[in-house]
């Protein structure tokens, strides 16, 4: 069965969730007990316990763990009545309830070991039943009221049928919704788990029934979930909230009750599927699933960081031993092992922090749905996720930027249906978002639309600048802070709203890249490349005027030797900006800045740089002269967040083992700030704040 992936994931989640709710139930039952010992009631705890058991029942029914359903249902009923009658429980009842929880725990544990859940003992069920009400017989024949195939009806427990009949009698609508899991839907964030979660907000889920169906494009896994619902919401509310097609909802109430022979109910028609469910359950149970708070992983990473710093100290100590003539061969060997182990440990922790990119994409369909409605655009969203994974913390930062681009595309780039028809385009605009790994360190995300494209000349004119020569220049223009404002956007439908924020997140914060490609009338594509993980990088350390710095290796194109006789100094500007030099590299002129000069580190004396670090910004290389290179090593980057410390070119701090922070430089950003952020240009930028980035 090809649908096993979805089901497997689903059962894994079931085990985790059931365990969580069991913990809650236990804690709350004990809280009830201790409250009652001191002569008080704790209605909140009663309700919490009720909720946990209700959820456990629902989850268990969905995966077909009937023994748990039977136990949880009885406990739930009793707790509901207790809550209604004031929340006092006799000690006998608390004992029975705790036994019930234990019985469920045993069955969940059995499932996670790969064993079947044993049927509950008659004695336990009787004890639970004697607490309050058992299930009352249903007065009317369900078949007379419910429009449901016998096969499905047979799967419903008597109390579920009763719940449906009561709901209908009370004026609720009884519906069935169908959902077939597929890999494609999973990348759109539609899994039975997400459906169930969203559905629970707009309807009571009476039961979720898995059923085998013939394999088809609609149900590639040969698996379909039927959700039996009670609700007062409209079909539209439900399909919108859940993300299902309108057609997947159907009433199960007979409009004109006709007498139907009662005996049609065939038990266990779908035993084939029941059998198939054991497969994934088996495979799964052997792998434990743990939900972990990200902050705990951060703690582990923090511990690792400390280890790496200690290793630097060790390396230094051994180096100085070695300098004083001690034989350190064995120590050096141990150090090598230690380095390898640290690398492995780091990789292991990083792996735990990785989340699938589908997690990033699965929230977008709902967003687009809402935007379409608000902007009266018709948009077809295509998502292509793949199997790439990225660090949770990167994912969290990328998401707002992605939302931004999607909003802009629907809001401003894609034309209204009428306009599209006039331009011989399909009425429905296309928004395509792809995510894929680029090499082993970067994730590439593209956001493309087939909308109106960016009118470069108009943007340039309004910005008071020359026409952008290429896409790089266009992006620079779009990212001028405050380029488009509310007023501009509503009157001219320009794009560029807040593009500088996207750039700040992707480029400045994450050290990624941002590109745009746009063709007038045809559409626009934004490409984002972000590192899969952050925080530990391979870096060069170097010294400049007595201060140490590090720069990530990935940023560096080349390290070259420079000689004072090699370079030509250009005439100095009188505005105090750093002097630009030109050196010759392999026959080509290469601009070079003295880092000490840029950072105002030197005290007037002649510079004597020996090395230069070459980085490439937007395709053009630029060199930074430094005093000497110290080495290459893995460093832990600590973010520098305080507003007092936000300075161009400084992206973080690290500890090289001397107990002092060393600055991590972003020479690419630094060169950008130098070539663009001169005072004259800053003025020009602020003068165009009211201009749209893109005019029609």
């Amino acid at each position, binding site marked *: 069965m090809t649908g096993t992936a979805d089901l497997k994931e689903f059962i894994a989640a079931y085990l985790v969730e059931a365990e969580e709710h069991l913990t809650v139930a236990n804690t709350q039952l004990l809280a009830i007990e201790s409250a009652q010992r001191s002569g008080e009631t704790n209605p909140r705890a009663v309700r919490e316990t009720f909720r946990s058991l209700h959820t456990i029942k629902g989850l268990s029914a969905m995966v077909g763990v009937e023994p748990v359903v039977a136990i949880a249902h009885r406990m739930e009923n009793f707790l509901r009545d207790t809550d209604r009658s004031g929340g006092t429980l006799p000690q006998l009842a608390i004992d029975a309830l705790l036994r019930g929880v234990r019985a469920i725990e045993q069955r969940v544990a059995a499932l996670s070991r790969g064993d079947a859940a044993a049927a509950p003992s008659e004695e336990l069920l009787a004890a639970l039943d004697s607490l309050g009400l058992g299930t009352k017989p249903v007065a009317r024949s369900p078949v007379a009221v419910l429009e449901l195939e016998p096969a499905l009806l047979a799967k419903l427990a008597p109390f579920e049928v009763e719940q449906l009949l009561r709901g209908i009698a009370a004026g609720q609508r009884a519906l069935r919704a169908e959902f077939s899991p597929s890999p494609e839907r999973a990348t759109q964030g539609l899994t039975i788990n997400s459906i169930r979660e969203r559905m629970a907000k707009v309807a009571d889920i009476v039961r979720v029934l898995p059923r085998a169906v013939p394999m088809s494009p609609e149900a590639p896994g040969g698996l379909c979930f039927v959700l039996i619902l009670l609700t007062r919401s409209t079909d539209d509310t439900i399909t919108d909230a859940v993300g299902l097609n309108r057609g997947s909802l159907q009433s199960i109430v007979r409009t004109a009750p006709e007498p139907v022979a009662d005996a049609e109910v065939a038990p266990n028609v779908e035993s084939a599927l029941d059998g198939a469910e054991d497969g994934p359950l088996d495979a799964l149970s052997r792998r434990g699933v743990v939900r972990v708070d990200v902050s705990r992983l951060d703690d582990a990473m*923090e511990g690792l*960081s*400390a280890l790496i710093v200690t290793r630097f100290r060790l390396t230094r100590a051994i180096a100085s031993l070695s300098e004083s003539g001690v034989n350190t061969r064995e120590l050096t060997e141990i150090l090598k092992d230690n380095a390898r182990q640290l690398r492995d440990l780091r990789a292991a922790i990083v792996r735990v922090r990785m989340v699938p990119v589908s997690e990033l994409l699965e929230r977008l369909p709902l967003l687009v749905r809402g*935007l379409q409605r*608000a*902007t009266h655009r018709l948009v077809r969203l295509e998502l292509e996720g793949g199997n790439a994974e990225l660090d949770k913390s990167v994912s969290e930062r990328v998401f*707002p930027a992605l*939302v*931004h681009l999607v*909003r802009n595309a629907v*809001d401003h780039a894609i034309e209204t249906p009428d306009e599209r028809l006039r331009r011989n385009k399909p009425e429905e605009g296309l928004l395509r978002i792809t995510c894929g790994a680029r090499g082993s360190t970067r994730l590439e995300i593209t956001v493309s639309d087939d909308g109106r494209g960016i009118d470069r000349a108009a943007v340039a004119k309004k910005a008071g600048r020359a026409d952008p020569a290429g896409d790089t220049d266009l992006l620079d223009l779009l990212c001028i802070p405050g380029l488009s404002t*509310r007023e501009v*956007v*509503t009157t001219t439908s320009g794009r560029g*709203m*807040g593009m500088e*924020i996207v750039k*700040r*997140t992707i480029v400045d914060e994450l050290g990624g890249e941002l590109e745009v490609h746009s063709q007038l009338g045809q559409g626009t594509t934004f490409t984002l490349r972000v590192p899969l993980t952050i925080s530990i990088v391979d870096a060069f350390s170097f010294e400049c005027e007595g*201060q140490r710095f590090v720069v990530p290796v990935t940023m560096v194109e080349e390290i070259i030797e420079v000689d004072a006789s090699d370079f030509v100094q250009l005439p100095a500007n009188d505005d105090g900006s750093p002097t630009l030099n030109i050196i010759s590299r392999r026959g080509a002129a290469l601009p070079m800045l003295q880092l000490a000069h*840029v*950072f*105002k*580190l030197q005290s007037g004396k002649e510079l004597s740089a020996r090395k230069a670090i070459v980085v490439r910004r937007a395709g053009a290389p630029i060199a930074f002269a430094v005093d000497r290179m110290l080495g290459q090593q893995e460093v832990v980057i*600590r*973010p*520098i967040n*305080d*507003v*007092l*410390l*936000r*300075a*161009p*070119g*400084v992206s*973080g*701090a690290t*500890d090289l083992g001397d*107990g*002092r*922070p*060393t*600055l991590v430089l972003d020479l690419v950003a630094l060169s950008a700030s130098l070539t663009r952020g001169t005072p004259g240009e800053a003025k020009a930028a602020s003068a165009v704040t009211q201009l749209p980035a893109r005019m029609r």
Partner: protein
Amino acid sequence: MKLHVVFSIAGAEYALPFDSVLQMESYDGATLVPGAPDYVDGIVTVRGLVVPVVDLRTRFGLPRAELNLDTRIILTESRARVVALRVDSAREVIKLDIDKHQPAPSVVIERSSGFVHAVHPLGKRLLLLLDLPKLLGEDSHDSKSRALPEDDGSLDRAQLPG
């Protein structure tokens, strides 16, 4: 009665509520951050955090002092920011009756650029109470600082259509 940390800068005594102070440390210099405001000495690592060191002398417009054995940094926390304050010395933690705080005379407020919000007479001594958020606040930025605007959720606001 509330605990306060008392420290001195250029002969004057200042106080901060104890609950805004994380710890006090001896100080032997920070790593310079090019482009940071001139009253920022640089960064230090304390408890695994990278924190800026604000030299209160420079912040108050007083001449810088050489480092010596008395020099301390006071690690403060305010509005989820941790910032170290460099002071000449810090030796005392005392209980102050907040009701005895008096509004600072206008000349004091002026001379301290508004960083002193109250005074507290204590025997012959006079303690100056610092307004920490103001001292570290964004509004107090030097024009010289090339710091970028703080990420204050503007991303969310900018996401609203239009």
